[in-house]
């Protein structure tokens, strides 16, 4: 048994890299600095090693050959999931370029809320170490932060030392929309966050009123979405008074129509405060299951985030048209390749078109795919790179054990080579 320290995690999105993990053969145990997101993701046992074709175990080469055959027979392949590391995305995009596939990262409907806002009017953002060392006021919009990133407060907010704050315990937290589920947000000196709850579907209105208040517009109603306008007025004033305010949200939790407009309101509100002479920045949280990694790599390889089509021989980006689930439902594709190296529960949509799954070992299917190749997980079974939520920092994932499970990049490259023959 060996013990590995300073293990970085690709699962939580905030670049946690201080886990200590014991390795006993193929079994992993998180000894310290685990959390509700990372510990189960690391400790998940490997339940299958063998690729399958039509439910029968076969050698890897046979599974690859069958995948090649399916893609060769396809007029419009769709590559979904796209949950892998940097090399996995490189190989995935090369394959897509080769066979004219649509590429669609599985969280893109959430990412889209950010991209639509950003591509329409831009934003001002910050990164985790700035939060840790400068932020004196954190506004959390529409998210129970600690269930999403359990160690956020411990690592980036109630840290003992910071560069610019005398006592981090004096920082302030405001929750707008959702209430916190635990006590992580309580400051070390016992101070509770201010909590203003409303229904998710009221968030657009609440955020818009908050922005109006920041801009000094007169609001004639007394409450919005059950929140007193006078309370929102206080939030606006606190943001304006903060030395380095940060507003955070997770696009994946803004599940209502036109949520991009709420993201845009948040981003414009941040700009307004800067225009008025105070500093304020946004911190969009994502980075789960390779979503940010996929978007970053697709950015430099195709020029666009990870919802693109290579059908015409060059990449085209359309945040709506190339939604793989919609395409499959509408019969717009005739083969599905699903790549998901992080989460064995994230299975592909059930479809009648030939389906190839490169999935984290242990996937259970409602309908057995035509080809299934169990993958190793980046940061466990092989080394790799992943991007953190703030997209500035890439971390180097370690190999922790010798499982023999292949990396997504290797399998995807083998399929691409097969298409050349």
């Amino acid at each position, binding site marked *: 048994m060996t013990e590995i320290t300073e293990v970085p995690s690709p699962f939580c999105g905030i670049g946690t*890299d201080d886990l200590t993990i014991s390795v006993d053969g193929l079994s992993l145990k998180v000894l310290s600095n685990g959390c509700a997101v990372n510990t189960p993701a690391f400790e998940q046992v490997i339940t299958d090693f063998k690729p399958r074709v039509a439910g029968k175990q076969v050698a890897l080469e046979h599974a690859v050959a069958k995948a090649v055959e399916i893609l060769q027979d396809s007029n419009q392949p769709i590559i979904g999931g796209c949950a892998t590391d940097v090399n996995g995305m490189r190989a995935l995009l090369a394959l897509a370029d080769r066979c004219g596939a649509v590429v669609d990262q599985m969280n893109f409907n959430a990412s889209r809320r950010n991209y639509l806002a950003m591509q329409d009017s831009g934003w001002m953002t910050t*990164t985790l170490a700035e939060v840790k060392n400068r932020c004196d006021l954190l506004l959390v919009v529409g998210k129970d932060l600690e269930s999403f990133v359990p160690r956020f407060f411990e690592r980036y907010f109630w840290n003992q030392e910071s560069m610019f704050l005398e006592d981090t315990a004096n920082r302030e937290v405001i929750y707008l929309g959702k209430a916190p589920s635990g006590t992580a947000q309580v400051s070390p000196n016992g101070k509770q966050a201010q909590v203003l709850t409303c229904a998710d579907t009221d968030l657009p209105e609440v955020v818009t009123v908050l922005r109006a208040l920041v801009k000094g517009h007169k609001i004639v109603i007394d409450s919005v979405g059950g929140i007193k306008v006078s309370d929102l007025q206080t939030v606006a004033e606190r943001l304006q008074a903060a*030395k380095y305010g940060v507003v955070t949200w997770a696009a994946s939790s803004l599940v209502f129509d036109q949520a991009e407009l709420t993201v845009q309101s948040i981003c414009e509100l941040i700009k307004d405060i800067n225009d008025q002479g105070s500093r304020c920045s946004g911190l969009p949280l994502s980075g789960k299951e390779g979503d940010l990694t996929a978007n970053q790599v697709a950015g430099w*390889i195709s*020029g666009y985030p990870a919802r693109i089509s290579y059908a015409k021989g060059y990449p085209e980006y359309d945040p709506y048209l190339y939604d793989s689930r919609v395409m499959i439902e509408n019969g717009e594709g005739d083969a599905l390749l699903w790549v998901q190296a992080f989460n064995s529960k994230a299975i592909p949509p059930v479809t009648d078109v030939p389906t190839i799954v490169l999935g984290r070992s242990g996937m259970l299917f409602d309908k057995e795919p035509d080809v299934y190749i169990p993958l190793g997980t980046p940061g466990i079974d092989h080394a790799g790179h992943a991007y953190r939520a703030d997209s*500035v920092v890439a971390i*180097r994932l370690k190999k922790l054990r010798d499982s023999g499970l292949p990396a997504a990049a290797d399998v995807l490259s083998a399929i691409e080579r097969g298409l050349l023959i």
Partner: protein
Amino acid sequence: MLIRLKGGKVYDPAQALDGEIRDIYFRDSVIVDKPEAGAMIDADYDIAGCVVMAGAIDIHSHIAGGNVNTARLLLPEQHRNFVARKLGHRFSTSRWSATETGYRYARMGYTTVVEPAILPINALDAHLQMADIPIIDTAGLAILGNDDYLLRLMRSGASQSQINDYVAWTLHSTRCLGLKVINAGGANAFKSNARSFDLDDVVPEYGVSSRHILQTLQRAACEVEIPHPVHVHCNNLGVPGNVDTALATMEAAQGLPMHLAHIQFYGYGNEGDRGFSSAAAKLIDGFKKHPNITMDVGQVLFGQTVTISGDVIAQYSRRNDASPNKWIAWDAECEGSGGVVPYRYKETSFVNSLQWLIGLEIFLLAEDPWRLFFTTDHPNGAPFTMYPYLIRLLMDRDYRLQCLEQLNQEAVAMSLLKDLDKEFSLYDIAVMTRTAAARLLGLPDRGHLRPGAVADIAVYREQADKAAMFADAELLFKNGRLAVQNGAVVERCNGTAQVVQPLFDHRIERDLQNYYDRFYNLGLANFTVGDVDAGQADSERFRAHACGRPYLAENAR
């Protein structure tokens, strides 16, 4: 494999060859002497009527990293493709991608390009992107001067040798070739709500001035012997009257080597009815008095582009000029910042016309291609793909005068340009974009055609229209392999990244790890650059170059 390029006109300032007809030989990846009679030549290219130069070197072009990728994602509409023929190698139809960056540079005869702004914390990202740029070699300049660690050292009165160790360690861990300073202290001050930052302004919380930071880093760069002089983006970029800032920065260099980047953006006076005028003559006057200074121009050319910079104060101050109207500013990890502001330079605009004129005035007045370098600060002044057009502007006075007619005439009236008759020669172009560029960067294996050089060789069909001539190389050899033929990429080969590895006291790693534990929650090893290429081992990917005294033009000519 021995290859001969036969009968071309050779322009190689390293050998004072000014268009002489010479055969060039290279064996595998290295240029060699003419072999003895009877030697077997494996491939022979008859290039009579062509011009031969070493592969070109771009010393300042934003091709990778956080700002670049953010700009791509911000502006999907700017790089849509509509029709494209696939070349049979991967990603050949992706516009403004890593692939296109390599291909478009190679087609113009470029073989080495420097990304001049890599935040250490973003170095892994930048190198992952650069590893996907085919054909050309790359290098990065690591940014210091806004980072808490340095300012903290300075605040506590740390010795120069401690700072030198930190600078050297940074170059090691980021795998970079040189040191960049961007508006020293300004990005840090922006986080403490400063909205402008001058050379003698003091960074809040630290009590150190921009000048002090700059001089400390310059001294470090000299003392750890980074061959490329500290590469400086001055304060007050784009502000009318900022020529005084540029001149004060030249003075602040105290006779030591220093490179001032995209100096066109500092050639601004504040005279005239609009309070904006050309100060190119004043700038060049100062430049001539400071032989320790090198500069690149950062020429503005008309059209749509996007400005990207680590100078968040400058970018934020220009947010209302964004066209299309969207922009990004980001603070990064207590190390620096970035800003992305799309912009369209218009001939009808007085300001843009004057910027165009000032850049060309600087080119034509400087009279020293060993000290003044050819850039557009891609994409800030213009995309690098417009270089051929800029070469024509420099080489063809009549064409320049024709272009003047399209400009805002109020600006033209204020400019000297119509009276500047100088035309650059092919030899001047070869100095500026090859030989001097390589020496400025400390890359002795390139930028020339002497035996022993890397066989990075560009061949152009000689044409009267210099824009057409330099747009598409007839042949481009990279490491001796034919990568471009008749302006088309024929092989997607790998480039390498150029680095220096100055010595440092390893005890600093312990201090740094302690510091990262306190303020970052990042293990040093977890973001140190490595394993960046899927197909190349680090030992192949990174090419180390010797340390040595920083470039001084008077020793290089």
